[in-house]
Each structure stands twice: as C-alpha cells, then as structure tokens.
C-alpha cells in the first residue's frame, strides 16, 4: 500500500500491461473470459485514474515520480513521470476510452478476442506512458512501444488490406521517429541528459540554424502522428483497415500524442525555432483542414470519410498550436479532447452499423433512420459535435483556435484564420451530406443493400457506450472550463517562454484619455487585449 501511495502513476501506467501480459498467457479457448477480465481491468484503471487524478485535495502537490533509471554511454536516463495541466485530461481520456471501446466492440471480433484485449491493454500502457513521461528517452520508448500492439491490432484483425495498412502505419511512423531519434541523441549528447529542461537549455546555446534543424526533426515525427498534411496518408489506410476498436483508439488517443508532443516538447524546447516555423506549420495546418475536408467529401466509404475528417480536425489542433497564442493553444488542447471523443464516437458508431450490415459503403445505405432511430439520433448528435455546432464540444475548440490564429502575431495569421473557417463549412458539407445519403430518404430498396440487413437497433450495451460520450460532448460544449482550466497556467507560461509576439489591438481608442471606456471596460469583464509581456 505504501508503495502504491508513492507510485500511483507507475501503477496506472504499468497495470494494464501487466494484466495484458497475464491475459496473453491464457489459452485461446477462454477468450471470452479473457475479454471480460481485460474489460474489468481497464475499467478499474479508469476508476482509479479518476480517483487519483481528479479526486485530489485542491492545492496538493502534483502527482509526479522521479528516480534515476540508468545511464548508457554516459547519458543518464531518468524514470520521470508526472501529471500536470497539459496531460491530465489526455490521461483520463485514455483510461476512459479504453474500457469504453472494449465494451463498444464487445462482439465485433470473432476470434482471438483474448489476445486482442491483451494487446489493447499493452497499448494503453504505451499511451499512458507516453503521456506522463517527463524524460524524453522514456517518452521515446513509450512512443515507439505503442506501435507494436497497434501494428498487430491492425494487421491481425483488420480488413482485407490489413497487411498493407499495418506495414504502412508502422513504417511511416517509424520513419519520422527514427530521424527524430538522431536529433534527440544529438541534443541529449550535448546536454548530457534527457530532461526536457536541460535539453532546452543546451538547445538555446546552439546556433539558430541547428535549433531549426532539431525542431524540424521533432516536428516531423510529431506531425506524422498528428497527422499533418502532407504526412497523413497512412491514416486513411490504417483507420479503414483497423478493427473498430483500433480505429477508435487511433483517432481517440494516438493522434493526440502528436499534438501533445508539440506542446510538451517541441515548442518549449525550441521556442525561437518554433516561432520561426509557426508560419509554415500554420500554412500546412490550413491546407490540412481544407484538404482533408475536400477529400472527405468525395469518399464512398463512411470510415474513410471519418478518417479524412480526422485529418481536417487535427489540422485545427495544429493551427491552434502554431498560433502561439494562449487562446489558440488552449483551443488546441480542448480540440484534442474533442476529437478524441467525437471521432472516437463516430468510429464506434460506424463499427456498430458495420457489425450489422457488413458494409460501410455510403451507397449501400439510405433510409437507415427508418430502421434504426436510436442509432440515428446518436449519430446525428455526434455528427453535430464533429461539425462544431455551438454547445457541443467541437465549437469551443474551433472557436478558440480560430480566434487565437486571428490574433497571432505572425503575418498572414488573419488570412489563415479566415481560410480555416472555410473548413468549418466544408466539415458540415461532408458530414451532413453523408448523413443525408446514409440515414435520410426512403429505405434502400436493393435487397442486397446494407440497410436491408439492419434488423435491430442499438441494444442496451451499445446505448450504454454511447451515452457517456454524448454527455461528454455536451458537457465539454457547455462547460469547457472543466477541461482546460488546468492547462491555462502551463500554456501561458509556455508561451511566455516562447516569446510569442505581442498582439496589438486593431483599433486604438480614439483618445488616450477616454476615461469612460476604461471604466466601462473594467465593469464589464476583461478589457485588456491579448498582450504577452
């Protein structure tokens, strides 16, 4: 017990993996039992994470563990874990989505479900570890370690093109992270440590060009994960071929790690280079937003459409991060959670209909609303969240990101914001157009069509899976402060370090002595313009 008290994070991170390894040892014949055990374990981890991370007395010290681990070739590697404002909710999102996804795809797999559950738990460890790691080497380990279970999940249980998709996923991600490793080794060698703060210091001593190269290496690795245009092409294949659970976790958590990497490492470690590259990054993000939306629009497979929509949505995250403003970055933080919930829910829903109809082609459906009203309702709500309707989570994030971008000091920021807004429109176009073709209209008369195979609406288990997601969608839309209040301080500090440019208001008061304005401003909330010292 005392060990647990002093190592709660270690427990949270490694408990799933231990359970997973244990489950792997069980024979295939008890796959159903294994699945159940896996689910219960994941659920317990979720409950514990809630209790330990959220149920803490206010003002108590942040959860952190730190111990020297080993030193190879003279480079000390620390075992440093911590939960702070930047990763708290991402951790909870992870622990939340894993059991939920297990429940949501309870009957989707026919064989080796026990092994699948075990891999899933291993993956959870990878994700949690990467999220809480405070040492870059440790982070790298978890980051790469995540690939392995995901590779098998796609490769073994995926669709017809699963081998291609799995290999592509693996090699694509690996290519980025290997180059990143070289940069990491270069910098760590200079710094003599893998601690981000120490490495940042070493980086600041390097010439600017070197900083830029290092930042690019970091950024490419993270951008592949995000995925940022034009490094996104692994995503549609991986998403489409992966089993539902894989897609959910991929969209829900794995992609977030890219954005998280930026905000945790790339930007704070190379603030000047980050500022230097903010503009190209923002440009790529805007392209991703528009491009993803346009390509999503012409997809014929629902899952692929959702996959491309991820490209578009994650483009918003990157845009927010590239804005280098508190509002934009906070928006990106929220948008990461949003996307995890909304797109995760969408993939779950697509999986539910696929389990029934065994097709995902839009043309195979039509009139689904008549057959499955409850399903339709859920789908519609999630769709609305995905297209950013106000009072759902999607809106707040996108609004902040766009405002932050508009305010950002680098040139063309305003143009980027305006163009990115177009993505919101396009988002509605492809989502609702798909909804129209799938759900509305008369029931598809073709006997072979997917709609004809829909014999049952959602059952209690599936509703139980969707309800928490819907609640979260609304909660995050109505009270986003719950989820971003903790990151406000770290983000502000981070941007202070990054020397983000001061934002000047566009309109200056006509007269400096205009007393009434100031008075009025003080009376009606914050009046100061976004100005960073």
């Amino acid at each position, binding site marked *: 017990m005392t060990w647990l008290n002093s190592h709660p994070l270690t427990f949270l991170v490694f408990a799933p993996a231990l359970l997973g390894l244990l489950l792997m040892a069980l024979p295939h014949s008890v796959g159903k039992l294994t699945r159940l055990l896996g689910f219960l374990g994941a659920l317990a981890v979720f409950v514990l994470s809630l209790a330990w991370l959220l149920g803490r007395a206010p003002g108590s010290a942040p959860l952190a563990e730190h111990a020297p681990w080993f030193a190879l070739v003279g480079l000390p590697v620390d075992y440093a874990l911590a939960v702070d404002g930047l990763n708290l909710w991402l951790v909870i999102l992870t622990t939340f989505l894993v059991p939920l996804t297990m429940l949501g795809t309870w009957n989707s797999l026919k064989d080796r479900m026990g092994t699948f559950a075990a891999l899933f738990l291993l993956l959870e460890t990878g994700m949690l570890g990467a999220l809480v790691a405070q040492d870059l080497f440790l982070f790298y380990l978890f980051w790469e370690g995540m690939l392995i279970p995901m590779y098998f999940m796609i490769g073994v249980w995926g669709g017809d093109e699963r081998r291609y998709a799995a290999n592509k996923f693996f090699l694509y991600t690996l290519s980025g992270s290997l180059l990143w490793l070289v940069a990491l080794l270069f910098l760590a060698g200079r710094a003599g440590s893998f601690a981000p703060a120490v490495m940042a210091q070493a980086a600041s001593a390097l010439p600017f060009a070197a900083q830029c190269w290092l930042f690019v290496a970091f950024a490419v690795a993270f951008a592949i994960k995000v995925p940022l245009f034009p490094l996104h092409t692994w995503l549609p294949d991986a998403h489409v071929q992966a089993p539902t659970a894989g897609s959910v976790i991929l969209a829900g958590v794995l992609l977030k790690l890219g954005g998280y990497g930026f905000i945790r490492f790339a930007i704070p470690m190379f603030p000047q280079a980050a500022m230097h590259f903010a503009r190209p990054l923002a440009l790529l993000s805007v392209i991703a937003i528009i491009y993803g939306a346009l*390509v999503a629009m012409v997809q014929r497979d629902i899952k692929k459409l959702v996959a491309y929509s991820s490209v578009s949505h994650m483009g918003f995250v990157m845009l927010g991060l590239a804005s280098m403003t508190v509002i934009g970055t906070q928006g990106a933080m929220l948008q990461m959670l949003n996307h995890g919930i909304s797109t995760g829910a969408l993939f779950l829903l697509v999986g539910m209909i696929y389990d029934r109809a065994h097709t995902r082609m839009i043309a195979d459906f039509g009139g689904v609303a008549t057959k499955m009203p409850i399903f339709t309702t859920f789908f519609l709500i999630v769709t609305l969240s995905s297209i950013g309707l106000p009072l759902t989570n999607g809106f707040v994030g996108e609004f902040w990101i766009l405002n932050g971008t508009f305010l950002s000091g680098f040139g063309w920021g305003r143009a980027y914001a305006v163009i990115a807004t177009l993505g919101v429109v396009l988002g509605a176009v492809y989502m609702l157009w798909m909804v129209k073709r799938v759900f509305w209209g008369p029931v598809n008369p073709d006997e072979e069509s997917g709609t004809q195979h829909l014999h049952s609406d959602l059952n209690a288990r599936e509703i139980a899976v969707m309800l928490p997601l819907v609640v979260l969608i609304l909660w995050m839309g109505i009270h986003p402060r719950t989820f971003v209040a903790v990151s406000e301080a770290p983000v502000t500090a981070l941007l202070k370090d990054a020397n983000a440019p001061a934002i000047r208001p566009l309109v200056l008061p006509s007269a400096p002595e205009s007393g009434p304005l100031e008075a009025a401003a003080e009376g009606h909330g914050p009046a100061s313009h976004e100005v960073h010292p």
Partner: protein
Amino acid sequence: MNKYFWLIPVLPLLGSVFNGLLGKRAGKGAVTFFGLGTVLGSLVLALAAFFAMKGMPDHRLVLDYGEWMATGTLSVPFGLVIDPLSGTMMLVVTGIGFLIHVYSVGYMHDDEGYGRFFSYLNLFVFFMLTLVLGSSLPLMFVGWEGVGLCSYLLIGYYYETDFAPDAGLKAFLTNRVGDLGVAIGMMVLFAAFGTLTVGDILLRVGHLAPEAGFGILTFATLMLFVGATGKSAQLPLYLWLPDAMAGPTPVSALIHAATMVTSGIYMICRLAPVFTLAPITMDIVAWVGAATALFAATIGLVQRDIKKVLAYSTVSQLGYMFLGLGASGFAAGFFHVFTHAWFKALLFLGAGSVILAMHHEQDLFKMGGLKSKMPLTFWTMLAATLAIIGFPGTSGFASKDEILYLAYLKSPALWVVGVVAACCTAFYMLRLFTLAFLGEPRDHHAYDHAHESPATMTVPLVVLAAGSILAVWLGWPKAFGGDFRIEEWLAPAVTYGQLHAAHGEHGSASLAMILASVSTVLGLGFAWFGYATYRKGLAVAEARAAKFPFIHKVLLNKYYVDEGVELVLLGPIRWFGNLLWKLFDVIIIDGVGVNLPGALARVSGDFTALFQTGRVRNYALSMALGAAVLLYVFLK
C-alpha cells in the same frame, strides 16, 4: 422574479428534451402539455421580464449566469440581456411561437412523429431565444447556429421522402456559409475590441473617432452581413429558403417567415452602432436588400406552389428590411420585422389551412373558390394580404412606407427599386389570393372534400390577423401624422454606448407624403391588376405569359440560379475534391512519396541481388574489388 428569467430560454429546452426522449412513450397528451406548456411558461416569463425591463431606468436588464468559455483574455459569459430590442423580439418569438405551437397541435395531429416534431419546435424556440437574448456574440452564435440546426431538422422532418432531406441539407449548408461570415466577423471584432460581449463592444465603439477603425470595421460588418444574408435569405444566399418549404407548414410560418429568417436583421440592429461606423457596408446592405426584394418578387410572380410564392415573398420582404437597415432606418427595418412576423406567419398558417383542406395539394392552379368552404381562413388571409401589399391603415403599410421613404433619402434609385418590388408584391399576392379563394374550383374532387380547419388552427389565425392590422399602432409614420413610436422605443438599444446618438435625418413632411402616396397608389394599381388577371381563371394569364415566353421561362425557373450553383460551384468543388484525393493523395503523396521509395528499395534490392550470382569466382572478384578499395583508402 428576476432570478427565474433564465427559464425563458431553458423552459422550451426542457420541453424539447422531454419530448425528444420520452415523446413516443408518453403519448400525445403529454407531448402537447409539455410542448405547449413550456412555451407558454416562457411567454409568461417573457412578459414579466419585458415589464421588468421597462421598469429599469435605462431600459436594460443584464443577467449573468457564469462563465461559458473563457481562456486567455477571452471571456464569454452565459449572459442574457433584455432591452427594448431583444425584449420585443423575445415577445414575438414566444408569442407567435406559442400561437404556432397551438396551430401545430391541429396541423400535426395525425402525424406519427408528433413528439419528435414538438421536440424540434421547442428546441427551436430555445435557440431562437438564445439568439435574441444572448449578451455576447458567441452566445448569440449559439442561437444563430442552433436555429439553423432546427431548421435543418424541421425541413427534413419528412425524412423518408427524397426531397425533404435535400432541402434540409441545402438550408443548413447555405446557412453555414453565412455562419462562416459571422464567425469571421466575431474574430475581427474580438481582435479589434478584445471582447465579444455586445454591451462592451458597443461601449467601445461609441468612443471611437469615426475614422479610427474604418477599414477593419467595414470588414467586420461585411462579414457579419454575409452571415445575415445566409440566415435572412438575401442574395446570393437566399437559395435555401424556397426549398425549405418542404417542411411542415407551421415550421414555414414560425421559422421561415416570422422568426429565424429575421435574425439577420436583428443582429444588425443589435450592432447598429458598429454598422453605422461602416458606411460602405451600409451601402452594400441597402443595395443587396433592394436587389433581393426585387429579384425574389419577380420570381414570385409566376410560381404555382402556394408555399413557394410565400417563400419568395418572404425573401422579398426580408430584402425590404435590409433596405431599411441600409438606409440607417434600424427602427424601420425592425418594425418591418415585427409587422412581417404577424402577417407572414398568418399567410403561411392560412396557406397551411388551405393545404390541409386540399389534402396536401399545394398547386395554386388546382385550387379556387375556397372562400365559401373556408370562411375564417378566407377573411384572415384577406387581412394578411392587405397588410403585405401595404394597404393604407394596415401594419404593412406603415412599416413599408417608412422603409421606402428612408430609401429615397439615401438614394432615389433605391426607392424606385423598392416601389417596383412593392408593385410585384401586390400583383402576386392578389394572384395568390384570387387563385385560392375566388373564382371557380379547378379541382373538384379536392374541393368537395375541403372543409374549415379545427379550432386549434383557426384561433391562431384570428389572433394573428388581429395582430397584422393592429401592429400599426406601434409605428404609424410621422408623414401621416403618427409618431413612429417604435423608433423612440428602440432608441436606447440601437444607440447603446453612443456618445452622439445617430438620428436619421428626416426630410420634409410633404416629400414623405408625396412619396407614400405614389407608392401606395402604384401598389394598389398592381394589386387590382393581379386580381383582374386571375379573376376569370388562368386563360388571361396564360395568354400574357405566351407573349413573353423567355421571361416567363426564366422566372419560372428562378433565373436558373440553382443550376448555375451546381454547375459553377458544387460540381467543381466535388471535382476538385476527387482530384485531390485521386491525384494528390493516392498518386503524388502515396505513390511518389511513400510507395515509390518502397518500390525503389525493392528494385534496388533486386539489382543488388543480381550480384549474388552463385558463382564463387564472382564472389572472389567482388572481394578483390573490395581489397582494391581498401588498399586505395589506406594508401592514398
């Protein structure tokens, strides 16, 4: 009492949630109770709030319910603001909304999705009230998008049909394009003022020298105006409104005539001081309004579907309102919103009554002679028709006259356009009225079964008819000796925060009188023309149409705008999306960027494997070459 005002929007939301979740199981009685009860409660509370607001010294009641989305320097509270502008609008929404709820009880009585319908309708009231009462732009935006959503849901209410989902989709997407403008406008305003609370913006804008933020304010207001054109169906984003008639008729009345479509005007009134500082925008607003008024009116001349005629009429009337706003007549524009709400809702509900009587027949050419069968509908429709063509003494006369007068002051050309549109309006409204109620029945089967609607439907008709006439009380034009009191009433709202309140300059009374007389006489003349053309049936009209086949065809096909949009905009976008996917994603990035290196690696692997010939002499040779390399490196 004040502490319950938050219930004004929330009550309908509760009704909506109840009806949505339990509507099917609870039965129609419960649905009716919750659906109507919540709106009625909201109406009562709105009245209370209205009078509470009147009691405040500055006619302004600000309610704050905590923070919604705050980060960095951005702060957006959940706040309601009740002032004359929003108060009036709130009453229109709850009042007419309630009436239409009542009407729907009858109209939707036999529909399977009764609960679903009321859920959507309640939800709409919630969002509309949020739009109206929201104290900050983002909160208004909640309502703004929310009503769009409800519009989408309600237009596509008959989702098993082919056309309704299409219409709903079109409505939502067109609105989204407009919302884009609002979103950008908000960003600009936030960047300019550092706040998004309407009150704060107005306070700050009031302290600006007129030239200080000229360019940026023009941009912001233009963007907001783009939003307004979407929501309020102005050129070029009006396309969705005629199609929106696919929804049930009460929806057309409430959303697509009385309330939602006027939110663009409402928003501009809300930010009137900002718009005032952007004269270019104001010009554009006026001209777009005028053009829309005329454009839609001409299309309305030849449409056969009764609801389509009304839809184009709505577009046209909304154009008037923008014309008024553009001419700095915020009060006039808003007054037209107010009056239009009554008579257009009435027209739609009357049309709904007719449609129901005719067993969902909407073709005017198949109606006729319903006067005797449906007396109550006939008389109320007559009142509405008189109001919309601006018959002296009706509310429409007052509001339209004021707008035309202000338009003249801005530019006589605008006045001319407005009058021509008014003439068209008079013509097609009388055409509609005549074809539906007068003359001989043209479809006897339907005619024989037609009957007056039940009380739940006719009572709202009567109330609305009374409103259509009596609303004039609020703003009898000064030119005719009235006091146009609505202007004074709204003044605190539209000039809030202004150091120097902008007052519309009025020309001489005689000029106003002359203009009004000319337009009224012309209008009535065209009204008679319409009546005369269709009094004897369709023959005369068809003969006339045959004389101008080209114009008739163009008008009948609504200037081919839908086809044009598909050809010029949607088609290319889809083509481009396909291009990006197939060419850029699949061939360039995946092919050249990903698979080509892979293939190259394989090909070079095949190449290097060629050296593995299996002959040991070759192996020795390569070793010898390696030795040569080594020796070279060491000896060089």
